[in-house]
């Protein structure tokens, strides 16, 4: 088991390095000069040139590549141009925020998606099934940023300003302005309230995909002989579905987890921007616009690592749900 994990991680090294290399060349070959952010009226060209040297931008690209790769392998991602802070510290500070958001969205997406898929399969070809099918396809076809805006419109803006609901949800940031003045329980509640809309916007679109897949998987499983056996045993229908069918139908859905991770992270980029959520996605977008190369390259590297680790987790989960799979 441990051996398998180690081998999987070793096999992923080329992938991570490949991604890092592609991003390095994309970023470094693109037109535009990061040092230009220092050029303003009143700053002498010599000073800007000095900054270019400080950033190492005066060297040829292959030399920069080798130096950057070497430093990165030692865990040194350089210094952020725009924040004047080691990139490692910036990312260490911000990564947990993204993990909270992605993990909650993932849980919500798979929870809701699996539930809907099961209901649809059990009620196959009824009105409920049809309505849910159209509903999930509708959400599936939705850009998450628009869903986010609509949720903000309803649950934040209208709920607060027009309808005056006491339970309106905040539309930006991770905590309220007066977070530090709150008691410990209020602080937890405050964080949760801020988490609802961003993770729902991320999750609903994914949940639609999971539901479509789960429905198909359940329909496949329900036709199997062992479901007939379970019924022949005299088990109540609820047990047949929840215990015997769902567990088997989950097996292919687990592989979906690995496939959805890149999609999920793509989603966080937009959603974090919309909700001003201080996470990796927003950091990436901001850094790209500020031409903060070290952060962009390190961020790409971190995303690649997260996908690899996520896929490994998906594989291990796969073995956990399907006893026929054993990793040596």
């Amino acid at each position, binding site marked *: 088991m441990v051996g398998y994990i180690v081998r999987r991680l070793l096999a992923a090294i080329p992938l991570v390095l490949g991604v890092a290399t592609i991003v390095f060349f994309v970023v470094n070959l693109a037109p535009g000069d990061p040092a230009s952010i220092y050029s303003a009226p009143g700053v002498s060209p010599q000073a800007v040139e000095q900054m270019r040297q400080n950033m190492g931008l005066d060297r040829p690209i292959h030399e920069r590549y080798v130096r950057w790769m070497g430093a990165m392998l030692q865990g040194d991602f350089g210094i952020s141009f725009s924040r004047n802070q080691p990139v490692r510290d910036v990312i260490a500070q911000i990564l947990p925020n993204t993990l909270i958001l992605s993990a909650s969205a993932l849980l919500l997406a798979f929870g809701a998606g699996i539930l809907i898929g099961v209901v649809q399969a059990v009620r196959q070809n009824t009105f409920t099934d049809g309505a849910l099918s159209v509903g999930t396809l509708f959400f599936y076809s939705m850009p998450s940023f628009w869903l986010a805006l609509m949720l903000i419109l309803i649950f934040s803006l209208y709920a607060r300003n027009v309808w005056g609901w006491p339970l309106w949800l905040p539309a930006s940031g991770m905590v309220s302005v007066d977070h530090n003045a709150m008691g410990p329980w209020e602080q937890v509640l405050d964080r949760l309230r801020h988490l609802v809309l961003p993770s729902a916007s991320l999750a609903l679109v994914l949940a639609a995909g999971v539901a479509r897949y789960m429905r198909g998987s359940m329909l496949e499983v329900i036709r199997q*002989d062992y479901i*007939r056996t379970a019924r022949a045993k005299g088990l109540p229908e609820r047990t047949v579905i929840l215990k015997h069918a769902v567990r088997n139908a989950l097996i292919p859905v687990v592989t979906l987890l690995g496939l959805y991770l890149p999609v999920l992270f793509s989603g966080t980029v937009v959603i974090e921007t919309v909700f001003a959520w201080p996470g990796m996605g927003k950091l990436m977008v901001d850094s790209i616009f500020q031409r903060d190369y070290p952060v962009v390259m390190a961020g790409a590297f971190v995303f690649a690592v997260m996908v690899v680790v996520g896929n490994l987790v998906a594989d291990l989960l796969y073995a956990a749900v399907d006893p026929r799979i054993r990793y040596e």
Partner: protein
Amino acid sequence: MALLEVKELRTWFEGEAGTVRAVDGVSFSVGEGEVVGLVGGSGCGKTVTALSVLGLVPQPPGRIQAGSSIRLGDLELVGASPRELRAVRGRRVGMIFQEPMSSLNPVYTVGEQIGESLRLHRGVGRREARRLCVGLLEEVGIPEPERRRRQYPHELSGGMQQRVMIAMALAAEPELLIADEPTTALDVTTQAQILALLARLRESRGMALLLITHDLAVVAETCHRVLVMHRGRIVEADSVEAVFHRPRHPHTRSLLDSLSPLKGETGQGEADLEGGTGDGTPVGSDGSGS
């Protein structure tokens, strides 16, 4: 008095291409402790008949037509509520299927699946279920039951899996066991062992057995009476002797004809295994098992 009394059973399937009358007016009965063989070619409605008894026909598209009657003792099963049906399934009527591999849930251990039946029908706790489960596995002839109990279906051989299915069906000590082609998916040697096991268990537990098969050789060895099905109807019903020696319906004759070249072969295999004569001895007379 008959344990199971089926009258005018009609199970039809509505499809895009029209209605398929899979079972079309079938009547028969199974007495207490009796072994009845239900024979017929593939697609003749044997399995649908068996599934109808337990109310397991998927509906839609299947439908048991009005006027059909299936009585178990004095309980009418056609039109019974789901709750009444559940009380019959597994508890009073056990069932085993053709493909043991696909009939066992791949994600639960053998012990969990047998224990589920025990806890459901005998109302025992987890620990007691575990103990009874080991006993059942032993009874169906599985060596090292304590170890096997913790294994998953894919870790067992086909014959072993079918034994597990039998143990599961026996968990609630049913009055009737319906075996739907229990040996078709197994190799010849295992077939003989499973048949012998069924015969022995029937004898020791005194339950009735409805054995569904397309193989007349199996019937000849195991059954008291035979029902021959053809195109959704029973075309011949009599004692094994009578059907084999004086077949009246042409379909029965053709079934018998197709059997003859194979009969010797099958008989041979069992003869070697059981050290007996291997000809059509009715059930119970020998049950050496494995």
